[in-house]
């Protein structure tokens, strides 16, 4: 660790802690999950980056959306995302969350994930290699440093729009809104 890092630690301990202990939700949402086991095991070893899968969303602050999102999966994704404590970050892997990818014309997958939950970064590839996932993590660090990884804040601010898009897909959702729009919430 160089001296600048030390200064940063002292100045912004919160940011530094967020960025170097990214705990990932263990949720295989799409085919990108196939590159997660190599990444977290010996050959690539994600723990060098402070990345570690954890059992429940309550312990996690990084959500990897690993590929295409079908309608049935989007619901648990929203549930899981809302259960994560702030600050929380989402990174989407592969082409599909950006513009539908392979399944752009499928009746059961959605094309633009950022219409339903905020995304802090996209990694190109189909699938992204472990290296790309790691580079994505380092980019996320930069964004956290610069305060640009603010998806969760945007979610809070524009919750009504996100919620209305979600409900256009599913009709009335079974769970109550996360933010009611009252002052003390925001």
């Amino acid at each position, binding site marked *: 660790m160089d001296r600048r890092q030390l200064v940063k630690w002292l100045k912004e301990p919160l940011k530094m802690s967020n960025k170097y202990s990214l705990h990932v939700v263990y949720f295989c949402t799409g085919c990108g999950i196939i590159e997660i086991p190599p990444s977290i095991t010996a050959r690539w070893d994600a723990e060098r980056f402070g990345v570690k899968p954890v059992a429940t969303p309550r312990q996690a602050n990084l959500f990897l959306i690993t590929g295409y999102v*079908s*309608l*049935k999966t989007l*619901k648990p994704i929203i549930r899981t995302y809302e259960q994560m404590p702030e600050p929380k970050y989402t990174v989407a892997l592969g082409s599909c969350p950006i513009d539908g990818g392979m399944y*752009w*014309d*499928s*009746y*059961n997958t*959605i*094309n*633009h994930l*950022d*219409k339903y939950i*905020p995304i802090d970064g996209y990694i190109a590839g189909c699938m992204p290699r472990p290296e790309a996932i790691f580079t994505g993590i380092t980019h996320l660090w930069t964004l956290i440093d610069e305060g640009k990884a603010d998806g969760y804040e*945007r979610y809070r601010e*524009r919750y009504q*729009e*996100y919620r209305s*898009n979600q409900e*256009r*897909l*599913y009709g009335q959702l079974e769970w109550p809104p996360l933010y009611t729009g009252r002052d003390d919430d925001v």
Partner: protein
Amino acid sequence: MSKVGEEITAHFPEINTHRIDEKRVEVNTDKGYLLSLLNFLKDGGYDHLGLISCVDRMEDGVLQLVYVLSRYAQDESVPGPDPTLVVKIPLSREEPTIVSSMGVFINAEPYERELYEMFGIDFTGHPRLDPLFLERDYDIPPLRKDFDTRRYVTEEFETIPPVED
């Protein structure tokens, strides 16, 4: 003519069979014979239900059910690999109903459930004909030929506005 084809014709003179190639035999019948035919085949060694599928032949107004059967154990009396049986049953496209074959093959259960969902075929006697894969309701079952997936995506998903610019 294959051995199994001859056996079927001997037992059910109304059912016609023909050999597509050396690996496949096609059996054409109608829905009244389904259970007796499947039982007969299962007892005759065709004890592996590989697949139940359906083809939407929209121009003919027919949903064609396809049962693929093969053998777990090699038929020693015939040399070479045993042919796969492709049993075809036409159903009316307007009111597709047929009796469930779960009583003969237990694994027919998810296949029938899927066909119910994807083609709207009603399997009488099936204990849980509820959605298997899909989250949304589709006016036309999605695998029918008149369901246009590209139009559906354009109309349903693309019209949702982006949250951020």
